[in-house]
């Protein structure tokens, strides 16, 4: 297995292609694992404490070895960078057609440094690379920029597929996203801000190449078996119809939504409580990539008859909302009309901004208004206009505040451009009053619109995830769905599936983080794994596909160690930045305010938090007091070189 890495220095205009050797796949698997290593090496020669909006930051795009091979397991491209909003490790995934077209264009990894003197875009076509003027694209939203590029680049040797940023990225809003083919979004961590800071509006790819597979017949056999498993799974049939919106009713039942800045955990709108809307207004299904056997994506088109509020959006068509788009709109902001929820998804995508941190920033301010903590004068100071209404569930108010953020129009936009934690800090300082109890966030200040308090593993995920509060790095289905079978499989005991005890919840985070790291490095979609056709074992079932593609044949135990190694590199990056145990934390609301409703009322994270965190460090082999990695554990993972760097930075425990 070898692949190609394109390095682009936008300051000098230099572009060069390097071979990613087989040994790199042996050590880092691919995808996010190799992205991480490219960034790690970059910051061995550049200041890791650099301004993430400056030219020394690096932006890496990569695809894993299973992507675009025809395995059927979905494709995810991954971007990796130092996060401008949280100041720590940052990465984010998205599906779509861009990732496989990067491979067809002759590349697997793209590493971008420096800063262009004027707006540019990068054009990759069948092995050729060109930095082109993007002055005609600057100021356009992500969809307009994509459409312009598709039109001007034509259809030879293929249609163009793109990564673009919207106005949020151009204005270096910390929580700006990168949008793939105008519809799928690398939302988290501020990758769009990094591209904006480099004056890079877009990457466009066209290609007609192929992908080399070590053992094509073996992969075809695996793929056939995978297809059969999916076709025989009736639950996946339901998922094809709804996608992640299938979670809406289940979350409503157990009280796992995030309502009005998590003052509640159940939606109030009659319509948004169920996924019936999907059946009523769903126009057609589609696959997000050409390499997916599930096809959970879909499109809506509003004709104005859906609701009174839908009349504002006649003709609007976009992807069916995903769960977290719905959670941020119908939950955090209490929008109760599906047309508005769908519109929220479209405009955040067009502007290129993360709807998690945006919604929790807006809901923070709305909660201050609810509690009478904002006078008319104080609102005028914040918004540079009189009489700004801050009404829960009012889309007009939400859109105004969104524009404040995207276009950096006023203090609200500037205070909160890095999300609710830094926004609340800046606003508290501005007012000389502490409002932090109303900010919802976890590690790094990142926010997330789901209820945490009854679910100890999810709570812990929010505190320890390398990219800041996030569910995906350690997505805790063993605990949240109370899977006794998986608890027995991985721990030989049942407690990981028992919500009433902290036992094995930190262990659960550690094990699942290793699995997710593997999947992200294979370059496949996590939902194929979560729906479990192959037995929830990325180290086993998917490991066989990885072997057919790369020739790297590992035991499940060896692959789990590979996943652990990848997680440890992300941790090491954060340790170099000075992150310690005190940074593995969650907000006051989640920690101390009792869960107000739902199936598990009264729970507070503080009851289990420290116990779970201790157990997590223990399973990781890290120092409990500081959270720092130990020399012995890193050496056992073959990471002596990483340990040396951490030792030089005073970020290693000699044990």
């Amino acid at each position: 297995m070898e692949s190609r890495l394109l390095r682009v220095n936008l300051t000098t205009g230099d572009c060069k292609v390097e071979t990613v050797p087989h040994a790199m796949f042996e050590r880092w698997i691919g995808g996010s694992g190799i992205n991480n290593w490219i960034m790690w090496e970059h910051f061995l020669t550049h200041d890791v404490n650099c301004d993430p909006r400056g030219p020394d930051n690096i932006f890496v795009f990569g695809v894993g070895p299973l992507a675009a091979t025809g395995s059927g397991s979905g494709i995810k491209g991954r971007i990796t960078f130092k996060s401008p909003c949280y100041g720590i490790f940052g990465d984010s995934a998205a599906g779509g057609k861009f990732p496989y077209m990067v491979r067809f264009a002759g590349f697997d990894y793209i590493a971008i440094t420096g800063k262009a003197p004027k707006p540019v875009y990068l054009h990759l076509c069948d092995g050729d690379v060109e930095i082109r003027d993007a002055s005609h694209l600057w100021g356009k939203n992500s969809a307009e920029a994509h459409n312009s590029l598709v039109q001007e680049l034509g259809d030879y040797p293929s249609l163009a597929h793109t990564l673009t940023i919207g106005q949020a990225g151009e204005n270096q809003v910390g929580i700006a996203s990168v949008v793939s083919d105008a519809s799928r979004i690398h939302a988290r961590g501020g990758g769009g801000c990094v591209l904006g800071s480099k004056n890079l509006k877009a990457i466009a790819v066209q290609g007609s190449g192929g992908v080399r597979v070590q053992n094509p017949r073996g992969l075809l056999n695996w793929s056939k078996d995978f297809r059969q498993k999916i076709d025989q799974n009736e639950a996946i049939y339901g998922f094809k119809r709804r996608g992640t919106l299938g979670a809406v009713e289940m979350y409503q039942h157990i009280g796992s939504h995030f309502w009005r800045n998590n003052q509640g955990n159940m939606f109030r709108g009659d319509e948004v409580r169920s996924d019936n809307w999907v059946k009523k207004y769903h126009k057609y299904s589609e696959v997000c990539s050409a390499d997916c056997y599930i096809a959970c994506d879909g499109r809506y088109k509003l004709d104005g008859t859906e609701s009174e509020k839908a009349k504002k959006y006649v003709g609007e068509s976009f992807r069916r909302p995903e769960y977290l788009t719905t959670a941020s709109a119908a939950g955090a902001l209490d929008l109760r009309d599906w047309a508005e929820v769908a519109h929220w998804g479209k405009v955040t995508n067009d502007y290129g901004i993360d709807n998690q941190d945006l919604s929790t920033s807006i809901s923070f301010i709305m909660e201050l208004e609810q509690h009478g903590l904002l006078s008319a004068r104080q609102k005028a100071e914040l918004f540079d206009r009189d009489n700004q209404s801050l009404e829960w569930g009012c889309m007009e108010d939400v859109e105004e505040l969104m524009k404040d953020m995207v276009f950096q129009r006023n203090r609200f936009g500037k205070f909160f451009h890095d999300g609710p934690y830094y926004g609340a800090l800046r606003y508290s300082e501005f007012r000389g009053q502490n409002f932090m109890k109303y900010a919802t966030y976890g590690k790094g200040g990142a926010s997330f619109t789901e209820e945490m308090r009854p679910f100890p593993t999810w709570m812990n995920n929010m505190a320890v995830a390398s990219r800041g509060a996030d569910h995906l790095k350690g997505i805790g289905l063993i605990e949240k769905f109370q899977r006794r079978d998986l608890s027995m499989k991985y721990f030989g005991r049942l407690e990981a599936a028992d919500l009433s005890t902290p036992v094995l919840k930190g262990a659960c985070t550690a094990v699942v983080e290793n699995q997710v790291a593997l999947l992200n490095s294979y370059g496949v979609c996590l939902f194929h794994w979560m729906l479990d056709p192959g037995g929830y074992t990325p180290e086993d079932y998917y490991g066989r596909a990885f072997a057919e593609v790369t020739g790297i044949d590992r035991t499940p135990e060896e692959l789990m160690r590979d996943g652990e190694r990848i997680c440890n590199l992300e941790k090491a990056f954060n340790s170099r930045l000075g992150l310690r145990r005190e940074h593995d934390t969650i907000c006051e609301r989640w920690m101390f305010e009792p869960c107000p409703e739902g199936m598990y009322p009264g729970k507070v994270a503080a009851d289990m938090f420290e116990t779970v965190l201790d157990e997590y460090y223990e399973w990781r082999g890290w120092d409990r007091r500081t959270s720092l990695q130990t020399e012995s554990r890193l050496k056992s993972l073959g990471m002596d070189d990483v340990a040396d760097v951490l030792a030089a930075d005073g970020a290693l425990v000699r044990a």
Partner: protein
Amino acid sequence: MITVHAQYQSRFREITRVEKESFEIAEPSMAALATAITGKYGPAMTALLMDEDSKSLNSRGTLYLNSKGTRMYLEDGLADGETVFFMVGIAGG
């Protein structure tokens, strides 16, 4: 005989075409309720609810909770008047 209630979401509701219903079952167990439901709704429900390989409730993308929010397994008992919720189990997005 005991009476137990079943409440359905998403894919389950598409098959049953009702949101909730009651069953009278001779054995006070989840196994008896599963038998009653699959008997009433046929192969699509059987494929959704049962894992033929392990002869247990299908755990892949599905979730069954009692009224206390505890996941139910075939071997679990049911009390008279208990409600079991049949849901899809997916997270994130």
